[in-house]
């Protein structure tokens, strides 16, 4: 009998022990590569430094819709005891919404690495104040990719680009606004350059009269469009650059480097971030207010935003720009990886010309203005 009791309690202990270990649930909005990044890269590292902790990584789908799903889940669990997620990786639009609804915890003060962040997007997310609630995971950026053999000195500003395109018809290509975000980003940059006060569009507040100031900019863009090629999609621009059909066009920097690494773009392609700037967007790490393991979540994010992890994982493996200020990465990266990401666009240029997208209502005004006055 005693042996039986002993055996039973032993069995119970064995069964129970994995349950008593801590589980950290990480939910990522975004493409599969972001889920893989957490699962295959960050999780093993964190589990090693935190024995007994298990990291579970789930994806909620790409784009703003993925963040929307996280929002819906957290919102539904608002009144429940604890949220299912301990760390969430979300887009700008979703972050603003979740902070407004009080679904996120103010945690960055407890994480040392938050002091390494310099980007304005860490506090301002498309017009919403998210300071203290998020740390950027990475920054992705659009820039002009050009063929250095066809084009020795790429246009440094939007004004120069405008003149250049006129002199070199059908050598500039972008994908309009319906074929993907690189074209949208180019158009937003155009409005920043010629539509008046870019800072107002980025920081708000929203003023419905602002869009009337863009008429001249749109008229010029319509004229500009006559001498450029409208490409079929983000990948379409890269394809045409690859085949030498256009000499220059806006692309996502991480896509550009991944394609180049795969041999889908010739090595003579380079990047230029034209002044006054083109938009990019970050992904954020955040902790739900109802997370049962806030302390562990903070430690996880501290690891994920540490200079070494940002250098090896974000920059070297996935070609994203770091979420923390790039100057903290110097010395952590081998020279080749550093050169690859920062030769064409220096850290100084990036912090000067890498702009956020406009706040949501201006953003919609720009798209609709383009449809009305440029594409129509």
């Amino acid at each position, binding site marked *: 009998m005693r042996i039986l009791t002993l055996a039973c309690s032993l069995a119970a202990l064995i069964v129970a022990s994995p349950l008593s270990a801590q589980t950290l649930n990480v939910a990522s909005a975004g493409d599969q590569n972001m889920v893989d990044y957490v699962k295959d890269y960050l999780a093993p590292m964190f589990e090693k430094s935190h024995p007994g902790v298990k990291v579970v990584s789930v994806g909620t789908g790409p784009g703003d819709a993925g963040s929307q799903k996280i929002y819906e889940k957290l919102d539904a669990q608002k009144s429940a005891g604890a949220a299912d997620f301990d760390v969430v990786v979300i887009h700008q639009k979703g972050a603003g919404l979740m902070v407004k609804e009080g679904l996120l915890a103010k945690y960055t003060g407890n994480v040392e690495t938050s002091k390494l962040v310099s980007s304005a997007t860490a506090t301002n997310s498309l017009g919403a104040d998210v300071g203290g609630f998020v740390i950027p995971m990475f920054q992705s950026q659009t820039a002009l990719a050009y063929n250095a053999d066809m084009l020795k000195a790429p246009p440094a500003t939007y004004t120069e680009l405008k003149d250049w395109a006129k002199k070199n018809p059908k050598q500039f290509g972008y*994908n*309009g*606004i*319906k*074929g993907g975000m690189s074209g949208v980003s180019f158009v937003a940059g155009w409005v920043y350059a010629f539509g008046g006060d870019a800072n107002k569009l980025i920081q708000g507040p929203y003023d419905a009269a602002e869009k009337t100031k863009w008429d001249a900019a749109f008229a010029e863009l319509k004229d500009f*469009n006559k001498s450029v*090629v*409208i*490409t*079929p*999609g983000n990948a*379409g621009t890269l*394809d*045409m650059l690859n*085949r*030498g*059909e256009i000499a220059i066009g806006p692309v996502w920097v991480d896509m550009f480097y991944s394609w180049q690494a795969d041999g889908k773009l010739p090595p003579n392609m380079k990047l230029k971030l034209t002044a006054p700037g083109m938009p990019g967007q970050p992904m954020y790490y955040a902790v739900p207010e109802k997370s049962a393991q806030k302390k562990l979540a903070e430690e996880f994010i501290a690891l994920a935003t540490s200079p070494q992890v940002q250098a090896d994982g974000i920059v070297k493996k996935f070609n994203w720009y770091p979420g923390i200020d790039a100057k903290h990465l110097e010395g952590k990266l081998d020279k080749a990886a550093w050169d690859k990401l920062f030769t064409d666009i220096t850290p100084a240029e990036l912090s000067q010309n890498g702009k956020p997208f406009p706040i949501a209502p201006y953003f*919609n005004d720009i*798209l*609709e203005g383009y*449809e*009305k006055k440029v*594409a*129509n």
Partner: protein
Amino acid sequence: MSLSQRQLALLLIAPGFALVAALFLYPLCFSLVSAFTGPEGGFSLQAFAKAWELYSGDVVFTVVIVVASCLLTALLAIVIAGTLTLGENRYIVGTLRALYRWPLFIPFIVAAQCMRTFLAKNGLMNNSFVAMGLMEPLQAVSFLDWRGIIATFVWKQMPFVALLLAGALAALDRATLEAGRNLGASRLRVLVELALPQVMPQLLVALVLSFVTMLSVLSVPMMVAGSQPTMLTVDMAFRINAYGDYATANALGVITYLISAGAAIIYLKRGMAKEGTP
């Protein structure tokens, strides 16, 4: 308790009817209601005003593309089906028979991806012409615009129309065709004056089905051509993805129903006229 014949019939069609109601009628009504609802609720034509203001050019573009594709498809399908039925060279007919159906098994999105690299300025087609010495590299132009969309649609739909048409032609009474040949008519004349008029209904059905299919394709205009101008499917997707604006997207949907209803009317009229004659 036994069911009457009538009740049994109703019972038998019930699952089919429920399926149509749930998967077609319900979404159709839903999108109609949404298209005619204003931002504050209540009846409104605002979505249509916006659709017309921004996308009237795209409506015309869509109709032109689809009609032109249908005409080209018909022409090529007649040539192929005619050759298959009236051709006398065994090798040509055999090769054609083996080849022409292939595009049927290729999805639109794959066809679009192939055309993207085939029709580009420095794509496979132009490069082949240059390599054969038929063209100077400087003369190369990109077909990745409306021409690319038409080329993809025609390539994809032609075998479908040719298949139906060849079947109809094969079922014709050979005696009339051979009588024509015996009296000295050329094969082209036999095809155009004797065979085609007899298979017009089948050709029309095939074309109406192609018309509606092409009207609904999103991948081809999205992948093959730039977005200015573009087809209505792309505009609908953009309204939803960029603005979450379902009302205008549904208004564009209603405009698309009307365009396809035009094709359906031609089809029904034809059918009724045929039923009316003894």
